[in-house]
């Protein structure tokens, strides 16, 4: 039997996986009945090669990348029917050799162990890979305290950003009196540049359900809620299916023989508010209120959903749990650094050759991720900085690329581990504009409850907007620093306390760029539209007049077949001329 598998997570579908699947499905019906099986799977992490198609037969597993319907047809005819792999298109053979082998070599897959290898809509696939064995083991052989001890000794820390020890959270909730407790899975992944939670939910939803059940047993809860972003429709569909399959198969809503444990999980769709990733705001939102955070303590482990003890863990954290239970805390703790154990999933994006999801052992360096795994910077440009931790994080400059992936080491740079977004920037990215972009995001998402976040971030944003428009004034940097540090120390929740991080870190490492904008009215990265001049290179200009015809303000003059000229006083810097020139003759200065 030959199996063809198509990756149909959101990233695959947006690259055209639906059409590839359609093509293959009609081919299989037409010519492959009885000998070819067509399957779907979640995200393998190699987003840069989507659409991915795997052909698995007696000769092993062949992975094809950048598949179009036409290529799919060729794969079907030549490989599936003809038995001859199309060598030049195979990117990986048995996930070990091939042109893309570097991408997987340094990775260690624990949270993503099933992603890309199981059909997320099939509980049988999950069961075949030790699915629901962990909850079985827990119920048969472990007491609640033994289980919590196991998670504690593994050293697992919250993967949502703050890195609080998971076992500790569970112990607090376990120690609370009362029989009504809750387990919440935080799937409100809102950081721009992070999509690992989505990939896990779309690629391996059962592992999250199982992790939640184990947590439920540990603290004595019978109910779980998954709070998922409404922007992830596919993840929600697959979760629903997984919950109904797990219920039908007797894992959920079912009292296990010999115990009094049963567990129920429901999904709550978010309604679009970034601040709801903060745990107290998330609880308010589940309760049907405005999602504004409240001061802690009391922590949710003491007083959470409906006033009852509640633990809130992130998707990736839950996905790690069944693995730890099955393989033991030693196996997990043997990976990583003294204080950060296990692996972390990163979503690597931006100006990078191989953008996608990577799961690496803690302790690996940023450079190793960027160069060894992700193949370096796009178009051979220079690596400038990497933004970690989304809008709450900061920019780490290329000169500190040896920084190790470790909660404490990253915090020292001024950035944070965060949920694992890693946006790579090259020399053409303006750091001031980047800081403005992130601040605009947080300012937009500020819930408005506390003054320093609501108004402080707005004042900072106004200053940054002036600077990128070339209207910066002496003293602006000092005001930014003062405001940033004040917001950091006075805002009520994590969103506000970290809002200034992107500005503070870029000021720390790229202060000269701010100064160039303010004092010389220049953008060193040639990125800020209002601070660049568009110039025509006389060597390259052929006098075709296309730019002059397209200029909306008639700033370009010149006779046909003679070099043209841009009048800087008239130019509104819209950049249209660059996009229409066929000879690359216009550059930014």
């Amino acid at each position, binding site marked *: 039997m030959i199996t063809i598998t198509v990756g149909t997570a959101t*990233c695959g579908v947006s690259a055209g996986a639906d059409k590839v699947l359609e093509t293959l499905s009609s081919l299989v019906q037409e010519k492959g009945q009885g000998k070819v099986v067509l399957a779907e799977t979640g995200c393998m992490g190699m987003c840069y090669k989507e659409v991915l198609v795997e052909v698995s037969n007696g000769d092993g597993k062949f992975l094809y990348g950048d598949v179009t319907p036409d290529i799919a047809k060729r794969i079907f005819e030549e490989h599936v029917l003809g038995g001859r792999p199309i060598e030049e298109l195979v990117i990986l053979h048995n996930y070990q050799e091939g042109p893309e082998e570097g991408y997987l070599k340094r990775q260690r897959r624990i949270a993503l162990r099933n992603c890309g290898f199981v059909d997320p809509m099939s509980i049988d696939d999950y069961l075949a890979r030790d699915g629901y064995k962990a909850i079985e083991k827990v119920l048969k052989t472990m007491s609640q305290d033994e289980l919590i001890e196991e998670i504690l000794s593994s050293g697992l820390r919250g993967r949502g950003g703050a890195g609080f020890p998971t076992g500790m959270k569970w112990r607090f909730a376990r120690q609370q009196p009362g029989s009504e407790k809750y387990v919440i899975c935080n799937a409100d992944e809102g950081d721009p540049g992070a999509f690992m939670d989505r990939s896990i939910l779309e690629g391996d939803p059962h592992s999250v359900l199982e992790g939640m059940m184990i947590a439920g047993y540990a603290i004595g809860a019978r109910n779980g809620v998954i709070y998922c972003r409404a922007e992830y429709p596919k993840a929600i569909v697959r979760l629903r299916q997984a919950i109904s399959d797990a219920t039908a198969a007797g894992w959920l809503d079912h009292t296990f023989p010999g115990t009094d444990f049963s567990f129920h999980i429901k999904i*709550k769709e978010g309604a*679009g508010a970034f601040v709801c990733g903060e745990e107290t705001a998330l609880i308010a939102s589940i309760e049907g209120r405005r999602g504004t955070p409240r001061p802690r303590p009391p922590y949710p482990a003491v007083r959470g959903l409906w006033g009852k003890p509640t633990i809130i863990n992130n998707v990736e954290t839950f996905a790690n749990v069944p693995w730890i239970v099955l393989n033991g805390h030693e196996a997990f703790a043997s990976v990583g650094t003294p204080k950060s154990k296990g692996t972390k999933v990163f979503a690597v994006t931006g100006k990078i050759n191989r953008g996608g999801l990577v799961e690496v052992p803690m302790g690996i360096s940023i450079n190793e991720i960027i160069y060894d795994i992700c193949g370096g910077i796009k178009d051979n440009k220079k690596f400038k900085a990497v933004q970690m931790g989304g809008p709450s994080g900061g920019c780490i400059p290329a000169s500190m690329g040896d920084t190790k992936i470790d909660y404490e080491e990253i915090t020292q740079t001024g950035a944070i581990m965060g949920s694992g977004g890693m946006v790579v920037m090259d020399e053409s990215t303006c750091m001031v504009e980047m800081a403005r972009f992130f601040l605009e995001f947080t300012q937009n998402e500020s819930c408005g409850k506390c003054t320093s976040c609501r108004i402080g971030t707005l004042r900072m944003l106004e200053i940054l907007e002036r600077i990128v428009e070339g209207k910066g004034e002496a003293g602006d940097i000092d005001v930014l620093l003062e405001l940033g540090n004040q917001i950091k120390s006075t805002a009520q929740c994590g969103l506000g306390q970290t809002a200034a991080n992107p500005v503070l870190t870029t000021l720390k490492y790229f202060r000269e760029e701010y100064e160039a904008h303010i004092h010389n009215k220049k953008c060193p990265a040639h990125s800020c539209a209002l601070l660049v001049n568009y110039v025509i290179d006389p060597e390259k200009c052929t006098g075709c007049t296309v730019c002059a015809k397209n200029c909306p303000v008639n700033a370009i003059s010149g006779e046909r077949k003679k070099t043209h000229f841009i009048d800087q006083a008239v130019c509104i810097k819209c950049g249209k001329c660059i996009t229409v020139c066929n000879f690359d003759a216009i550059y930014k200065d």
Partner: protein
Amino acid sequence: MENTILEPREKEERLPRLNSELWKYCDQPGQLIPLLQAAQETYGYISESAIKHISAVSGVPESEIYGVITFYKQFRLRPLGKYLIRLCDGTACHVNNAKMLKAVVEDELGLSGSDTTEDGLFTLAPVACLGCCSLAPVVMINDMTYGRLTPQKLRTILRKYKKEGQAADSVQSEEAE
């Protein structure tokens, strides 16, 4: 303005549908957001009458409902275009020139000042991140996601929707006649 969109007769026909959605959630605590989501799914937006209705059923004061609606980005107090264009301006898309795509959409659809086209076909909604960062820049139209866009590609896609939408509209008006 929102009340003029539905004819009174039409409103009456639709309310029972909303009602059944309401009752499905009504006994659960924390029902307000699912109720609003159901109302929005039925109408495409949350009308004043829907707020009154939900208040009557759930016992939550209208003012509080309004507060919740305005807090979350998902909820709309005005009707939505037939095609919702979610334009991603997340980090990766931003670095890959999402701004240009916004200009393309506005130019192609003739949007200026308003987020919905006059013919009611398109609504443009910039969003923070669609989570397809490695395919940046990305635009989502209704439930379809389009990645690795260039201005030209986006224009072609928009024109396709325009054609489709106008064709469907003319069929509807013929039927009405």
